[in-house]
């Protein structure tokens, strides 16, 4: 069933047990992103040490895809350099744009390749990208401080 390619076990796991959820009280920058078409919301806090993402916490509400995606993302990007994080971000965006033709770069994306199936559901791509776009934004803000 095609639906199973969307709702991978690891995605539902993250949805049930979100990682790094709960906003840190200190941060270099904070952004709030909303998926205007369905109302999903995410607030993302970042702290950078030198070039490294030393803290990445979030809060939000929304569907399993948006929440699992931000959970997995924070797991993945925490401790990475901005450069490495950007490469992972690009790779994830590429995967989302692949319309189901790519399985994702497992070296870079690790568990996040589970989102490959989302790319077949155009209505859900924005959900999967919500946290990632917030990350892109929050980095710019943290760096321009």
């Amino acid at each position, binding site marked *: 069933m095609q639906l199973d390619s969307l709702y991978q076990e690891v995605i539902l796991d993250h949805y049930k047990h979100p990682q790094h959820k709960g906003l840190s009280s200190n941060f270099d920058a904070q952004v709030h992103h909303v998926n205007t078409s369905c*109302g999903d919301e995410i607030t993302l806090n970042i702290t950078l040490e030198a070039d490294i993402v030393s803290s990445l916490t979030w809060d939000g509400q*929304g569907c399993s895809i948006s929440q699992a995606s931000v959970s997995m993302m924070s797991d993945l990007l925490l401790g990475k350099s901005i450069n490495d994080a950007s490469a992972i971000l690009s790779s994830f965006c590429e995967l989302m744009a692949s319309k189901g033709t790519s399985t994702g770069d497992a070296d870079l994306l690790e568990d996040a390749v589970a989102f490959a199936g989302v790319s077949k559901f155009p209505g*859900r791509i924005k959900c999967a990208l919500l946290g990632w776009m917030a990350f892109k934004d929050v980095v710019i803000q943290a760096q321009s401080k």
Partner: protein
Amino acid sequence: MPLSVEEIRKDFPIFERTVRDGKKLIYLDSGATSQKPNAVIDAESDFYRFHNSAAHRGVHQLAEEATDAYEGARETVATFLGAPGGSNEIVFTKSATEALNLLAYAMGNAAPGSRFALEPGDRIVVTEMEHHSNLVPWQQLAQRTGAELAWFEVTPDGRLDLSALDTVISHGTKVVALTHQSNVLGTINPLDEIVRRAHEVGAVVILDACQSAPHMRINVEELGIDFLAFSGHKALGPTGVGVLWGRINLLENLPPFLFGGSMIEMVTMTSATWAPVPQKFEAGVPNMAQAVGLAAALDYLTKIGMDNIHAHESALTGLLLDKLLAIDKVAVIGPTSNTERGSALSFTVSDIHPHDLGQFLDSQGIAVRTGAHCAWPLARRLNVSATTRASLYLYNDEQDCQALADGVVAAQRYFGSF
């Protein structure tokens, strides 16, 4: 007279297709947009095929035919709404959204001190259950003019709280803009008292009939309102056409909105005067084929009978309410009683986010809408950031309702590991 849904569906070509690998299409999203019968699709194509030309703008036969078709559509709409002033009270817009913006901008264009001018101290009244299209234009008008925006609140069971009617619609209220039927809750709002009070203080009543005009008999004279807007595409009609109805003497006093060809009387490089109503509000070559398609839609609806359609939907709504409320963890957002309500039915299923539920239902061939349904303030007031909405129309039947209930249960099973 009960509808023969089986016969009706034959008129709608989309039901010949399947979705998601061969599943039967169960379309429960008519509140977003309705499907179209062949009569409508053909009316629009036939206009292009046989009569296409710029209405009002040529001396040739095609121009005559196009004008007849377009003005004939206006007559049909006037009859459909029971417009007391006839077809001159009907303005074609591109959508209800444009019709409502037209009113807000036109009032913004009124000369200070004139009938429709707003200024600090004046009030615009809306409700907390408005669609963004009948809220944001008024917010903006209030901001531009310094008028105050006030609103009726919504009770926990999804009705308008009219307990403070006379204070909310204060002296100084110039506009009362509200929805006839909530696109989220299904609530049908009682108008009599609101209209009475609005007219008492000299305000005009603007009715957003997007969710009512397609589903029940509307007679603007009986409702006693002053302006009404609805969209063609939710009433079996084409996309790209909406209707503004207004009392003729009000339309005549209202300044124009869009400026350009066909809405003018005289133009110099620095000044212009306006054509009579309704041309004054229809700048540019109009959406002729869409107006003609909308007329075909209203003819189709009228033939089946608006009262029959409403009765059919009411019966199905009652059934669906019962079926959904019987499911564990399902909460209906909006009136759970089947009185003064239409067939838009929003609900939540605890532990399953609407977006996930909608996706699951889609995999079963069931089309619903999820989210805040363009009514964020309402969602916030009722403390639900998103809901799942099923909305019914004349082509839905009991099997569709059963399929939805079964789908919800199956979704609970699918996501049960949560």
